[in-house]
């Protein structure tokens, strides 16, 4: 066979990798409408079903949040999404490529921040980025340029020659983020990006992520932090026991499942409890408080305060946390 002919016969994986490369460099729009398209995705560990038959998609340029209590199946879902865990059932297409056959090509286009800070403690900050760049076939010179640019982006250029073990938790998290961006991904996957960070570091990370979002990067993140979900995500999926409970825009979910205004009454009297029950309002009856979810214009606070409230009544806006707790329950998950 002449060498030329031999060279253009590519394997399926090489084809897919080539398509990604070509799209990026020819600045062509990705013909696939969905960055992620999951259908009837299932993950089973022996008898235990971690993810049950879920279907969802992620649009280009969108930030999608995956919420759920511990053990809801968020991490299992995410791990299938970057081809770490093999799926038990269903189909998964990322960038329009089938995960089962094209996992390697898909990974070229994905950046992942895993839950643990798994930076290489044997290496410096800069080396961490450079070594990672090599896994994506990025040549040494452009890896150095990219690494420098990313270190400026996370405001850690002055620490680039320090060992990562000398960094604070927040700094490490930012380096993990920079590392996930080294291949200029089309999709960024973040598994609890701000868990365990102090408020300052958390806001730093949020600002970086907002910046990336505004540049049109598609993002998928899991979180326990409702502020984070509300602030960063265009759309949310709330999961529990491996199933999708609801999905939608944060504001829409709040309106639908927690109303507009919320009245919380601490240590309510028994008469008050029965009064709320008789009014047929959307409410939660807890041990030491009662939470009433009011709809637009129903003026529940005014109705309640006159008769029953002294200083044990709080009026506030409905939040995503209300939605989350109402949908997934208040029992502890361990």
């Amino acid at each position, binding site marked *: 066979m002449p060498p030329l002919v031999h060279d253009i016969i590519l394997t399926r994986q090489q084809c897919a990798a080539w398509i990604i490369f070509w799209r990026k460099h020819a600045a062509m729009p990705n013909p696939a409408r969905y960055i992620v398209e999951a259908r009837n995705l299932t993950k089973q*560990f022996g008898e235990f079903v971690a993810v049950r038959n879920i279907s969802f998609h992620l649009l280009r340029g969108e930030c999608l949040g995956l919420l759920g209590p511990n053990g809801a199946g968020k991490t299992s879902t995410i791990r299938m999404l*970057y081809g*770490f*865990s*093999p799926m038990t059932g269903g189909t998964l297409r990322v960038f329009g490529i089938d995960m089962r056959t094209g996992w*390697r090509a898909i*990974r*070229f286009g*994905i950046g*992942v921040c*895993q839950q*643990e800070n*798994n*930076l*290489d*403690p*044997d*290496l410096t900050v800069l*080396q961490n980025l450079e*070594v*990672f760049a*090599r*896994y*994506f*076939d990025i040549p040494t010179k452009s890896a150095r340029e990219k690494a420098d640019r990313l270190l400026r982006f996370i405001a850690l250029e002055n620490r680039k020659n320090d060992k990562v073990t000398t960094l604070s938790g927040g700094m490490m998290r930012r380096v993990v983020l920079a*590392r*996930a961006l080294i*291949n200029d991904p089309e999709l960024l996957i973040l598994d609890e990006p701000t868990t365990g960070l102090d408020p300052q570091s958390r806001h730093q990370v949020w600002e970086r992520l907002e910046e990336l979002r505004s540049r049109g990067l598609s993002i998928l993140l899991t979180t326990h932090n409702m502020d984070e979900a509300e602030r960063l995500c265009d759309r949310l999926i709330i999961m529990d026991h491996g199933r999708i409970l609801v999905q939608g825009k944060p504001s829409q979910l709040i309106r639908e499942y927690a109303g507009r205004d919320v009245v919380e009454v601490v240590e309510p009297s028994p008469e008050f409890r029965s009064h709320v029950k008789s009014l047929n309002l959307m409410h939660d009856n807890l041990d030491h408080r009662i939470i009433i979810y009011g709809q637009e214009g129903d003026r529940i606070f005014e109705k309640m305060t006159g008769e029953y409230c002294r200083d044990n009544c709080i009026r506030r806006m409905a939040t995503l946390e209300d939605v989350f707790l109402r949908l997934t329950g208040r029992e502890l998950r361990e």
Partner: protein
Amino acid sequence: MTKVLPFNLSWRFVRVWQRNLVVYRRIWLVNFFVPLLEPLLYLAAFGIGLSALVGTISFEGRELSYTAFIAPALLAITIMYNAFFENTYASFVRMYYQKTFDAMLATPLSLDEVITGEIIWGATKSLIATAIMLAVISLFGLVRYPHGLLILPLAFLGGIAFGSVGMVFTGTLPSIDMFNLPIFLFISPMFLFSGTFFPIDGLPVWVQHLAIAFPLTHLVTLTRHLCLGMFGTHLLWGVGYLFLFSLVFYPLALLTMRKRLIH
């Protein structure tokens, strides 16, 4: 169901090898120090201290000084130790504590490539240490050239054999403390009874049979013959055994690591 075959392998394992090289170069001085000084220590202790008691040892019709007898064994032991410890303790730390493999598995690398890169790296460490040690031992006139140069590719092959079996333990043992077990049951008996410090002919027959199964026995035979400049087709049996040993344990290492890490 996890897919068992085929293996997901490409040249990309080199990336993992390169990562380990970057780390190795950071502390190259420490890494060079041990193979440089260790043979001096052994040769001093055994060569000077013990040879007066032992006198000469007859090996395939030749009378050897005790130093000449054990020097090649030191090379074989170095090959075994470097690969085995790299692919047990060091690999376990990277896998379990540093989560280095998890991070790699979010990039275009497959697990088979990660593990292959680790094993090839272990063999490379064996090769580097052997090269340094060979140079030191040569200074004492204990190596015949050019035959002695064949010890280098042999170090790589032996490294793959011992690294693979080490990686099988890394894939199966639940905690790092448990490595004491294979070291006690596998490495220490080999260290002592593979014709390293005394010929195995003097041992009871059943121990001799057992020793033949040890990969280190074959490695010692090979390094000893090559150091003495003795060639023979019977040496191919030893090379064949090391090949076969790798051929069994390398795929087994990939399978056990898959079972451990891919969920």
